[in-house]
């Protein structure tokens, strides 16, 4: 059984008499123990999607199942109980500013009626886990962004949840702190077996720790699968955009016809061979390297390169054939350098 099952989810908001469709028929499954990324540009509907998982937003149509339980069939009380089994962290941390670190971590336990003494013991364990044992008495305003998010993670874990929802949890952090927080989330996933759902607009977050990814664009699910396969073979415009970090829509196709470009992705084996050098020697025609990059995808180094092809049509085909023969994934692209 999937930890989370979303079926045909549609959410329509009514704002000042206007209706805005935030999500249109989204269906996806998140397996137990997975780290699942949901990525999209801002306004794509991903925040609404993650809030549907714990029913902070009630879907207009469709249903959400947690461990096979349909949330729409739960009483308000049962729903609140279920929410305590789903931890959530946020972009702005959302800590109680007037409570110190340990009281913040105890807070969800206080809500579920755990005795204060037991709550403290549990909170200390968690602060130890996130590496903030010495900050117990500090107030949120005395902490850095990374520390605040660690407190928020400890707080989210207090009630022993089976699922952790992360809503742009690293978007307010610098790259180094982001890496630390993501490392912690990975550790929690491995150590405690918690299913993690990560909402982000940063591709690097997805390639760093997610195993599966869903791409949301304009309220629709446009692509879904293993991170590795979407990274090497993106099909949707949204996926390509997120990978390149540039806008693709609205570019004139005819102007690109002349300077045909391809995106190639090196897997581990091909990364050791001088593929491009061999190619040029064989085809006897230069290619233009517009961009090259290596990324860490699920712990493996994966290289990507954007090549500008020569004008001769037959040479172009020859180059593409050669690259495919070398075992690389080749895809035409409209990305700019």
């Amino acid at each position: 059984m999937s930890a989370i099952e979303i079926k045909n989810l549609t959410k329509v908001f009514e704002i000042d008499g206007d209706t805005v469709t935030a999500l249109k028929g989204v269906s996806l499954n998140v397996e137990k123990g997975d780290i699942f990324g949901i990525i999209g540009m801002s306004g794509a509907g991903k925040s609404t999607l993650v809030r549907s998982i714990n029913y902070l937003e009630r879907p207009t149509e469709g249903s959400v199942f947690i461990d096979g339980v349909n949330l729409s069939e739960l009483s308000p009380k049962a729903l609140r109980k279920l929410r305590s089994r789903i931890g959530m962290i946020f972009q702005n941390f959302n800590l109680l500013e007037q409570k110190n670190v340990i009281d913040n971590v105890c807070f969800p336990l206080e809500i579920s009626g755990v005795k204060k003494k037991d709550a403290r013991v549990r909170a200390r364990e968690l602060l130890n886990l996130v590496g903030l044992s010495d900050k117990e008495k500090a107030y949120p305003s005395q902490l850095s962004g990374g520390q605040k998010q660690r407190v928020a993670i400890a707080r989210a874990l207090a009630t022993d949840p089976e699922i952790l929802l992360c809503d742009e949890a690293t978007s307010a952090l610098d790259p180094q702190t982001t890496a630390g927080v993501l490392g912690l989330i990975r550790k929690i996933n491995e150590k405690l077996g918690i299913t993690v759902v990560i909402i982000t607009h940063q591709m690097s977050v997805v390639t760093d720790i997610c195993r599966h990814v869903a791409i949301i664009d304009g309220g629709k699910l446009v692509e879904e699968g293993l991170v590795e396969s979407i990274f090497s073979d993106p099909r949707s415009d949204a996926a390509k955009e997120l990978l390149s970090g540039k806008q693709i829509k609205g570019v004139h196709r005819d102007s690109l016809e002349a300077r045909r470009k391809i995106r190639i992705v090196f897997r581990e084996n091909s990364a050791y061979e001088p593929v491009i050098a061999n190619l040029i020697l064989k085809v006897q025609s230069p290619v233009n390297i517009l961009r090259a990059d290596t990324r860490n995808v699920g712990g493996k180094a994966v290289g990507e390169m954007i090549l500008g092809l020569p004008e001769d049509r037959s040479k172009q085909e020859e180059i593409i054939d050669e690259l495919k023969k070398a075992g690389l994934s080749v895809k035409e692209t409209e990305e700019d350098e």
Partner: protein
Amino acid sequence: MNESVIKMLIEGIGETLYMTFGSVIAGYIIGLPLGILLYVSGGKGLRPCKPVYKLIDFICNIIRSIPFLILLILLIPVTRAIVGQSYGSTATIVPLVVCAAPYIARVVESSLTDVDAGVIEAARAMGADNFQIITKVLLVEAKTSLMTGFTITTGLLLGYSAMSGTVGGGGLGDIAVRYGYYRWQTDIMIITVILLIVIFQIIQNTGTKLSAKLDHRKR
């Protein structure tokens, strides 16, 4: 200055403090729940309910639009029914509370509105119900702002209690009117004004210090 005047002034201070704090406390007993209700039923509240909001909103606005001095006279029958007489410091508390409660409700509503929506969302995501959100999140996170509101309200009621002196309300205001105005004893008038200023300063400073001390947001 003779002994009897000093004794009268001390009594006046006592009555003024009694009226001010008596009405603030009674005012909060009514106004705090009303303010919470305004926030909860308001458009961005925990459980928006337009009829409830509109009703409280309407009553608050009506009372707040009547000048205190007129309210004082209008309420004489009510005061007489509750306290048994319409003059003296206990009687003055009735119109003071009626005047303060809607004001307090507004101040409380505005304090609660300032609480970060994200924190409320986080509490809801943890499985908190509305009552827990009010008692454990809203009132806790808004405590500095609520304290500031309390101080402002107390200062306001100190002034209004003095105003009730014109209709025999007791306290320093009463002394100022009876001696300073009707008997032309300017020295007593000046002393009561100075005393009122001192009391006001003490209330305001204590309130400001207390709310700064309660605040853990910036250090």
